[in-house]
């Protein structure tokens, strides 16, 4: 098992970090993964340990994501779920307050790196819950139905949350990317 930790530990950590974006949570899920692995009766028979461990890790990551979203959902969702309250984004007639601009998509590697850097910053600015449900949906490609079931929210609520997250993220990107 120590060999596995040396060989696959860093990879598993990066895998978790890429999805959770929180170093401590990433450490914890890797730890839980090894704990689950060592307790598994079949661990000695695994011929492809990395694949096997990653499989366990994925479940642990989803558990944490659920918990992250669930913890904040109630307080944040209740007050605003009736209306999108997107007054900052649209005028009274429903027109864009700030018109979406042409981003002139990054063509070379350097520009792409810069773009991802801006995206990273914007993700960090997003409220934790919004970022998490967004990650669940758009990175992890969790089924929408599953999100609703897990979080015990209606599909409409989920759409609203995702819409808000995307609106906030897009706006942040537009401001910061175009000023690069």
């Amino acid at each position: 098992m120590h060999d596995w930790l040396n060989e696959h530990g860093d990879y598993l950590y990066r895998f978790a970090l890429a999805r959770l974006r929180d170093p401590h949570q990433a450490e914890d899920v890797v730890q839980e993964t090894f704990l689950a692995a060592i307790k598994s009766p079949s661990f000695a028979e695994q011929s492809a340990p990395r694949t096997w461990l990653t499989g366990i890790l994925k479940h642990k990551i989803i558990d944490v994501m659920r918990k992250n979203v669930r913890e904040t959902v109630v307080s944040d969702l209740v007050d605003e779920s009736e209306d999108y309250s997107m007054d900052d984004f649209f005028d009274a007639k429903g027109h864009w307050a700030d018109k979406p601009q042409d981003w002139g998509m990054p063509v070379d590697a350097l520009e792409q790196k810069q773009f991802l850097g801006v995206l990273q910053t914007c993700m960090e600015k997003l409220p934790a819950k919004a970022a998490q449900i967004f990650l669940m949906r758009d990175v992890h490609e969790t089924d929408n139905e599953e999100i609703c079931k897990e979080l015990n929210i209606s599909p409409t609520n989920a759409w609203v949350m995702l819409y808000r997250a995307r609106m906030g993220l897009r706006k942040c990107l537009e401001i910061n990317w175009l000023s690069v």
Partner: protein
Amino acid sequence: MLDCKQTSQLISQSLDRNLTLRERFGLQLHLFVCKYCKQFSQHLQTLRVALKQMTSAIENNNTIEMPADAKKRIADMVDATSVR
């Protein structure tokens, strides 16, 4: 005719559910005449792709390692569990 606010909501939702025929029609009609909403729609696509790239960039970045103390903690835990 849908306004930009309604359209942006539908564009976002189209990533999460199948729109009805009527909604799709309204959306297309609006997109046909509104370059800003078209721009918005492209932005959401870009966001999705970029987020995936960001994820794989972290995953494949060999310079990121698990902190030594965490590794130590896990190694100790493995020992403690395997002795039993």
